[in-house]
């Protein structure tokens, strides 16, 4: 066997050269990253499609209203409910699968994050009920659900993610908040479209970033 530098101390598995070791290390690391990452590029891509269809559907159903009432058609609501339910179900499944057998501080932080985000969702969308009950004007009623809850969720998520030092997640949440804030300038009908396109872009960027992070080599600098 030719002498390979650096293997003077190796006593087991002779013939396992540095090139093979680098390939195996990369392969094992990528496999582990995929297994432990709860939110996959495929899921983010699916979410990008979901937000585009859901918010786009809402925009299609309100854009021709004269006078504006803010009422979304039944088919748009039905499509939204089905797609959001599938997205939540898929997310819960992948989180459960990735966390199987894993314990420790990061895992507990992740569980805390999930709880806080669920609370932000309930507060953000739940606040629409008192508004409706108070009889706010149609434009306000139309503008609120398209932008305000996502602004609340995005800012809460960014704050918690920054506290946990989950920087990619903090940037993502901040981008969601920015998209929601920008939607506020689109008017009651246009806000649905701006939010949909903005969130779609955020999720696609996140899918690309996650895919890159999972595939990047450990050995190659």
């Amino acid at each position, binding site marked *: 066997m030719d002498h390979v530098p650096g293997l003077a*101390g*190796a006593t087991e598995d002779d013939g396992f050269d*540095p090139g093979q*070791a680098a390939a195996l290390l990369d392969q094992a690391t990528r496999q582990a990253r995929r297994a432990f990452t709860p939110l996959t590029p495929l899921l983010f891509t699916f979410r990008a499609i979901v937000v585009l269809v859901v918010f786009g559907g809402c925009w299609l159903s309100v854009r021709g209203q004269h006078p504006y009432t803010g009422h979304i058609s039944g088919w748009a609501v039905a499509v939204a409910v089905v797609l959001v339910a599938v997205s939540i179900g898929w997310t819960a499944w992948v989180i459960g699968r990735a966390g199987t057998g*894993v314990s420790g501080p990061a895992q507990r932080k992740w569980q805390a994050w999930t709880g806080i985000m669920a609370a932000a969702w309930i507060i953000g969308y739940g606040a629409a009920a008192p508004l409706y009950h108070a009889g706010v004007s149609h434009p306000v009623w139309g503008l609120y659900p398209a932008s305000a809850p996502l602004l609340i969720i995005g800012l809460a998520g960014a704050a918690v993610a920054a506290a946990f030092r989950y920087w990619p997640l903090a940037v993502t949440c901040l981008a969601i908040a920015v998209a929601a804030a920008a939607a506020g300038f689109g008017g009651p009908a246009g806000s649905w479209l701006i939010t949909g396109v903005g969130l779609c872009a955020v999720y696609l960027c996140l899918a690309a970033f996650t895919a890159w992070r999972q595939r990047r080599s450990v*050995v190659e600098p």
Partner: protein
Amino acid sequence: MTTELDPLIHVPTRLKIVATLAALPDGDALSFTRLQDMLELTPGNLIIQLRKLEDADYISSTKTGSGSAQRTTVALTKKGRAALSAYIQALRDLLGGLDVEATSPTAQSARLQL
């Protein structure tokens, strides 16, 4: 420059174990059964390799519960993480060195002579 590969890590099975545990955030642990499923190893083989890594203080294992509910978790220690970083650096140095060797004028002229 580090060019010696840690013989404790430079074994396919142990390299896979260390790489898998290193993919977890610092301080997190993985159950023995999940690790075994991920690496598709027999319990006996995994125990032998884990023991060697634990003897070197590269991993730590914790047992919780008792009887049939007993659960073993393993985690990469700070020393283990540092050893893997040094191993990766050594690999980079070696592979970089091999590339330089392969593209050096001496190596190219030797290849031309063949």
